[in-house]
């Protein structure tokens, strides 16, 4: 029992334990539960309060009393009065601003200014701009694929072709690209011939320019093919020389140690080295020897045929022929790649 004095009346008011009281959830949670009760026990009114020695002060009662104090409120008259005063005070401080709509406030909450500021940073702007340029550029190149001379995007096509050519380091690839470009020129000529809107003179001019271009491309491809051929032969010679030198060296060593198996089969003397190395190198480059020269020969021949067809103004056939050349070249390229892998693993 808590005995409380009642001020001026001098009476003693007994405050019995309230039967209906349930401790406020927030109050208890702050304490990690009622310390008088075992963990997990609901703070029900039926459970007797724990005794703190002789003193009948329990936590629930205390919390209840504390909770009761929230009923203390300011004088209503003062509250109302000051409300008016406050309103006039804040009105005097600044001109009235139009109240904002809730939607706008919610938007500002979701999208704080900081995000916009961080988006406006030079790094983001620069990257956004570069991405935009890239997308627009790629789109332009793609769109220019079927353009013909006189189109606004034709220049993009030519530039992309030049770029492709610059990016190709292999002679084989360059030759292939040359054939492709020649095919493009032929296709453009077909398109121009189909296009009847233009005057005959302008068409003729364009056709003239295109055929010159075609000739140049074909000439370049031919040059490249001969270069490739020469390089191949040179490489073959180099290979055999290197191989021979190695063989000679190892033979010298082997002579000191014990007779090697290869030497027993074929006696190695100064002049014979060349013949043995030739044999071995022939075995080594057997794939190259069987596939590439043939295709190259056929590619050469087909190129000649295509040129002839072009001179005869048979453009469709020329295009077909050139596509065949392209195919042959890419096949030979594959074979070459495979043979390279095979020789490197040996």
């Amino acid at each position, binding site marked *: 029992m808590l005995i409380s004095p009642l001020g001026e009346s001098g009476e003693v008011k007994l405050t019995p334990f309230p039967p209906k009281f349930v401790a406020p959830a927030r109050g208890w949670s702050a304490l990690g539960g009622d310390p008088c009760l075992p963990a997990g026990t609901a703070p029900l009114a039926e459970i007797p309060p724990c005794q703190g020695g002789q003193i009948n002060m329990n936590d629930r009662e205390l919390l209840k009393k504390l909770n009761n104090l*929230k009923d203390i409120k300011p004088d209503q008259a003062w509250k109302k009065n000051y409300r008016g005063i406050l309103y006039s005070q804040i009105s005097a401080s600044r001109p009235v601003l139009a109240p904002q709509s809730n939607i706008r406030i919610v938007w500002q909450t979701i999208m704080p200014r900081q995000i916009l500021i961080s988006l406006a940073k030079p790094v983001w702007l620069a990257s956004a701009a570069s991405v935009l340029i890239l997308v627009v550029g790629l789109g332009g190149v793609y769109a220019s694929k079927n353009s013909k001379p006189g189109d606004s995007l034709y220049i993009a096509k030519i530039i992309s072709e030049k770029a492709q050519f610059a990016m190709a380091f292999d002679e084989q690839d360059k030759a292939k690209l040359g054939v492709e470009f020649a095919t493009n020129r032929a296709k453009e000529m077909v398109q121009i011939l189909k296009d009847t809107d233009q005057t005959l003179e302008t068409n003729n001019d364009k056709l003239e320019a295109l055929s010159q271009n075609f000739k140049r491309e074909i000439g370049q491809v031919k040059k490249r093919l001969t270069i490739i051929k020469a390089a191949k032969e040179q490489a073959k010679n180099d290979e055999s020389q290197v191989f021979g030198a190695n063989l000679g060296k190892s033979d010298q060593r082997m002579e000191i140690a014990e007779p090697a198996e290869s030497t027993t089969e074929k006696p190695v003397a100064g002049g014979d080295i060349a013949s043995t190395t030739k044999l071995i190198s022939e075995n080594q480059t057997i794939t190259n020897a069987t596939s590439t020269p043939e295709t190259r020969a056929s590619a050469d021949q087909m190129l000649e045929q295509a040129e002839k067809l072009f001179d005869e103004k048979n453009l469709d056939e020329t295009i077909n022929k050139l596509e065949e050349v392209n195919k042959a070249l890419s096949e030979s390229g594959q074979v070459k790649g495979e043979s390279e892998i095979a020789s490197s693993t040996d």
Partner: protein
Amino acid sequence: MNISKIEEKLLLYKVKKNDKEAFIKAYDLYVDQLYRFIYFKVGNREEAEDLSSSVFLKTWNYILEKKLENPNTLKALLYKIARNLIIDHYRKTKGRESVSLDNENGIKIIDEKQNPNYGLELKADLLVLETKLPKLKDEYREVIILRFFNELSIKEIAEILDKSKGNVRVLTYRALNALKELLSQDEKPSF
């Protein structure tokens, strides 16, 4: 008195945009609890009223001057300003007669007329607590007022007091124990 968190945020944003109506709404919402907070700290009705009014005016000026530095709630801002004002008040009244709590005439309990017994009981409790509260350490008293009188969440108290949540929990526990001790000391002679 109860207001959802979203409403509270909305109110804060409106007040930030110098919306007078919103500020008056905030006054209606928070004046009772702020008054209670100040009352229990200064222990005098008139002073509590004066300080409460200053808190609202000062908060409005503070917002006008755009001094707001990332406040999460308007409530926290009001309490912080109230705390500072109370500290100033203590500084001014230092050396003067020590603050005494009002007698029962000064305390207005709303539902006194509806339920006289309840009112009586409350008054008794209040008297006991009122005499004990000033004896508590300042930070204990503060946390008891915020937590149990004004039913603020631990998070809100942590924000007002610039402390961590765990810190506030520990403080609440200790404050309650200290209050119990004080009350039990008082009861001993009566037996």
